[in-house]
């Protein structure tokens, strides 16, 4: 198939949380490992879905890959080139190939700029281009994302959610991206507009050969759009494999719980889960509680069912991603 367009090796991103007034001076800051040793690769013209709940680190992965926030350690390779430590100046020309669709519709567009100005800016960032060519390119972009020309003179707050999303996509295309990190592109949109956006993503991948890192907590949409899926929990990937496989036959207990908790009753009955896990909510993802070993152990039904085996919480035997079948990896000592 295609070449590998993105490879992420042992990526780590830690946030420092100061604990007191003079903590920085005394070096006593708490480390929050938002992204902890993430490895994956993405092939051209394909989509990798990144799933997880809030706090799992999936948005941080996206931002770190695009170097919107510096990685703490690890390597990021784009089209074979190591971009982790490039200086800002060297990296800037590469930025045009990799863009982000931001989750927050309102904040991603400068509220004081008209749409035409926003697109024009994106077009002229990396290339010198004159008046009529700009108009032509803008026309092309509008057609590609299915946006009406009358919207060009509007400000972002005059646009609907779906239209704002499409402007974000158009801007990424305007720069000339071939790899998009889509951060929750369908959340905060109505169902019928979600369908439009999903279709648009599919079309663009087909027509322009784009590759996506599709970050979302909406499992059904991720499954529909992605070729491969990676499931994240508290900063680590716990399972990764082909989209259909992960949904139909998940091997990691967390993945199983995620898919089986879809609100729609039919799919729940079909997957045969009982609602015995009806105990309370999972509580705040608490990085403060020191965990040792497998991060999911305290909430893992398999761990509890097996009488809390020591191997799960021993820090030296923390489960690593292991191959368990074609293109399928799980980080668990007792995969289902």
């Amino acid at each position, binding site marked *: 198939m295609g070449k590998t367009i993105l490879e992420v090796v042992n990526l780590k991103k830690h946030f420092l949380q100061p604990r007191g007034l003079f903590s920085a001076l005394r070096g006593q800051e708490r480390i929050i490992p938002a992204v902890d040793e993430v490895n994956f690769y993405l092939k051209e013209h394909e989509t990798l879905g990144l799933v997880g709940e809030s706090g799992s680190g999936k948005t941080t992965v996206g931002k770190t890959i695009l170097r919107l926030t510096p990685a703490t350690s690890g390597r990021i390779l784009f089209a074979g080139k190591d971009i982790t430590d490039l200086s800002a100046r060297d990296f800037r020309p590469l*930025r045009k190939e990799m863009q982000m669709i931001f989750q927050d519709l309102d904040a991603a567009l400068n509220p*004081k700029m008209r749409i035409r100005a926003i697109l024009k*800016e994106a077009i002229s960032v990396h290339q010198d281009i004159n008046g009529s060519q700009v108009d032509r390119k803008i026309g092309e972009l509008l057609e590609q994302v299915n946006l009406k020309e009358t919207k060009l003179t*509007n400000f972002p707050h005059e646009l609907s959610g779906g239209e704002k999303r499409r402007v974000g996509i158009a801007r990424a295309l305007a*720069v000339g991206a071939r790899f998009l990190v889509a951060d929750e592109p369908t959340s905060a949109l109505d169902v019928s507009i979600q369908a439009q956006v999903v279709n648009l993503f599919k079309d663009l991948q087909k027509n322009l050969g784009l590759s996506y890192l599709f970050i979302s907590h909406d499992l059904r949409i991720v499954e529909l759009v992605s070729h491969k899926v990676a499931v994240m929990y508290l900063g680590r990937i716990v399972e990764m494999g082909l989209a259909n496989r992960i949904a139909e036959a998940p091997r990691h207990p967390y993945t199983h719980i995620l898919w089986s908790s879809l609100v729609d009753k039919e799919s729940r009955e079909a997957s045969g889960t009982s609602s015995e896990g009806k105990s309370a909510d999972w509580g705040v993802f608490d990085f403060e509680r020191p965990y040792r070993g497998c991060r999911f152990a305290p909430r893992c039904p398999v761990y509890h069912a097996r009488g809390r085996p020591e191997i799960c919480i021993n820090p030296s035997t923390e489960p690593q991603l292991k191959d368990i079948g074609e293109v399928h990896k799980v980080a668990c000592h007792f995969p289902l």
Partner: protein
Amino acid sequence: MRRYSQVSRHVGAYSDLPFWKKAAPLELVYVAYGLLVVALVVASYILGAANLLPHSPQEMDLQLLMAPPATAGHVLGTDFVGRDILSRLIVGIQAYFLPGLLAIGIALTLGTFLGVVAGYRGGRIEVPITYVANLIDSFPRLVLILLMVAAFKPDIYYIMVVVGLTNVPVVLSLIKGKIQFLKEKNFIEAAIAIGLKSRVIILKHILWYNCRTVLIIQATLGMAEAILVETSLSYLGFGVQEPTPSWGNMVQAGANYLMQGKFWPSTAPALAILITIMGFHLLGDGLNNILEGKRSK
């Protein structure tokens, strides 16, 4: 049950009224008044610089001492030595106009620069800058100025430099606040993502689009303050000296005649001061409420 309907249902997509129809009428009055004052000041400055005055400000007409307004050829009358008041008022603007611009210039450029540095970079740079800014802010301005005057020569330009510097903290904290607020917004991240240089991002996205109203307002308030400082100083005798007219020293000189019941030589410049400072303040206030106030969709 009443039914509310409109004859014309097709209002036209997004036919937003221009902002002057949307704003409260009082604010518009303020702004209009302020703009009028600005226009007069600028016009007077030009007239004064080009020496296109109805009479020479120094020329004394001893026949016509303290004539009331609208006496032969003197629109605003004459002062206690027969000099035309209108011409003196016009020339008096010279005393504060350019120096005022200097003060504004210093306050805005230095304040913006430091505000941007403190806001955008944050962290270790921000703390000392804010500290020093607070320090400067807490000095009583007039005291500093008088110290300045005592230590150096009482040149209005030096004084305006001090005025400008003492205004830096205000501009700094406004800009810093705006930047810190905007930095969190994703459109800055998006701008970085598409590959814009930091410099462009700051100048264009932050300053031009989002801060320019604040800066314009600060400029108007700065000028109002410059006028106040200059007139106060010349009233006290530290600024422009006789016979060169300055509104402040005109008030001072005319004050001696108040006891005699001749209040016009003192009142005319005082009114000019009042009208002008009020104009700048109202302009700043009005613009603030219209442009920076809560916008309704």
